[in-house]
């Protein structure tokens, strides 16, 4: 019964998507906007298939995915690691946390020129940019998750003679995982934004660079193709992370 219900809703949202694309086509065919700036789904699709056939679009997509993945993993390790440090250490709370409060409100895009000075037009620059921007949600949710650990669990750890490392790995991290998963998702969204920003600045391949170059060449269909592909990447990566989350937190639904 519940499956049927969910199936119906899925069909409904799919129908809405089809209707929107159809509406987009109608709007493009009506020529309210110049065809050069506003290609319909048909021309966007042709640009996509042309790009895939020539192989350049595949290469750019893979480049962007690699940077997105590496940057996100880097941000996750830094964010969760620093979060665990701040969450378990009084010293870190007093000395490190205030520095975060200064750095956190800085827009990551404003940091890009600074990184460009130090790292040049490189992958490292893009990865650092992603890591800087995307680590905050992970760091803050980890700290929050750690601060919510029931004091009884700390007493259990003490009476079992667990060290700090074992406490973090076996009690604090699994306990904070529901919070951290939320941070990982938010971080993924930020990482996708920043990989595009980074690629537009460095112009060293990738979908971001491809969109920027297409814009300079007034090739609207190519721009729309790149944007559509980024949308699909966002959708698929988020869904994958959702699956991981369901598996990692299946104890919550028992």
């Amino acid at each position, binding site marked *: 019964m519940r499956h049927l219900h969910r199936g119906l809703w899925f069909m409904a949202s799919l129908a809405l998507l089809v209707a929107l694309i159809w509406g987009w086509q109608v709007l493009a065919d009506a020529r309210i906007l110049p065809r050069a700036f506003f290609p319909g789904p048909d021309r966007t699709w042709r640009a996509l298939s042309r790009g895939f056939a020539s192989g350049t679009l595949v290469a750019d997509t893979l480049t962007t995915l690699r940077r997105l993945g590496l940057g996100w993993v880097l941000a996750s390790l830094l964010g969760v690691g620093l979060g665990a440090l701040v969450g378990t250490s009084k010293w870190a709370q007093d000395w490190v946390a205030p520095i975060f409060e200064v750095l956190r409100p800085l827009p990551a895009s404003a940091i890009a020129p600074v990184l460009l000075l130090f790292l040049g037009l490189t992958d490292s620059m893009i990865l650092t940019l992603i890591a800087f921007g995307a680590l905050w949600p992970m760091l803050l949710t980890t700290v929050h998750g750690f601060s919510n650990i*029931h004091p*009884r*669990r700390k*007493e*259990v*750890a*003490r*009476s*079992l*003679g*667990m060290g700090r490392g*074992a406490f973090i790995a*076996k*009690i604090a991290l*699994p*306990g904070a*995982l529901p919070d951290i998963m939320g941070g990982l998702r938010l971080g993924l969204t930020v990482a996708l934004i920043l990989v595009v920003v980074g690629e537009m600045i460095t112009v060293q391949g990738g979908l971001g660079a491809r969109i920027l170059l297409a814009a300079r060449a007034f090739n609207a269909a190519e721009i729309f193709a790149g944007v559509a592909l980024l949308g699909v990447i966002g959708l698929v990566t988020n869904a994958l992370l959702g699956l991981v989350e369901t598996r990692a937190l299946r*104890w*919550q639904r*028992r």
Partner: protein
Amino acid sequence: MLETTGIDATKSGTQEVLRVDGASVRYGAATILDGVDLTLNRGEFVCVIGPSGSGKTTFLRLLAGLVAPAEGRVLFRGAEHRAPSREIAIVFQDYANALLPWRDAEGNVSLALEAAGVPRAERAGRIRALLSKVGLAGSEKKFPSEMSGGMQQRLQIARCLAQEPDVLLMDEPFGALDAMTRQKLQDELLGIVRDSNVTAFFVTHDLEEAIYLSDRIVALEPDPGQVCRVFDVTLPKPRNQLSTREMPEFLRLRRELFDFIERFEP
């Protein structure tokens, strides 16, 4: 070779495990425990009763090493004891917080073995033995959320026994359970304590539970918490939920304890 100096505890039969010497505990300006003395011997079952605010739980936390005395000292096997030790296990009343909800029954017991550095190969067998000892055979793969309160408390006891403790400290462990489960667990606990020869220190506000379980009952009085009286319980063992509770000695103690506690009721 027998030690010639000091007390030969094994020969006398009453081997001292934990001793509290004039210990006081303060939180800020408030004195929770004031000059408490107590000696716990090996294999002994001691219950602590007292009106609320008499520092029963603080007394347990002092023995656990979770709070340090402002005055006096706590000796564990003759050495000063100021931090928790693996040899002193604690059964908390709120089993839901003390257990890890993301680990199944096996995993929760395993936590104690992992912390003690027991090699992986040995763990499975010991976990199975411990779970069946507390009556949880067949529930190895269940998560705490799939268990009743009684089962969860059994699981916590199994994890504490995995520490192979000398002392088992229990803070109203059956307080949240229904009467039938409570009586069943009381008998199982007496069996476990007898078989493993641990020393049990049991905080309760249920006077009959205290009499039924104890070799000795420590009665605390409040404001500030002090040891007011110690009652020796000479009821025969093994105890029985029906016949023990009908014995004249049981009823006499029951009256004495009720009279004691009533003095503090407003």
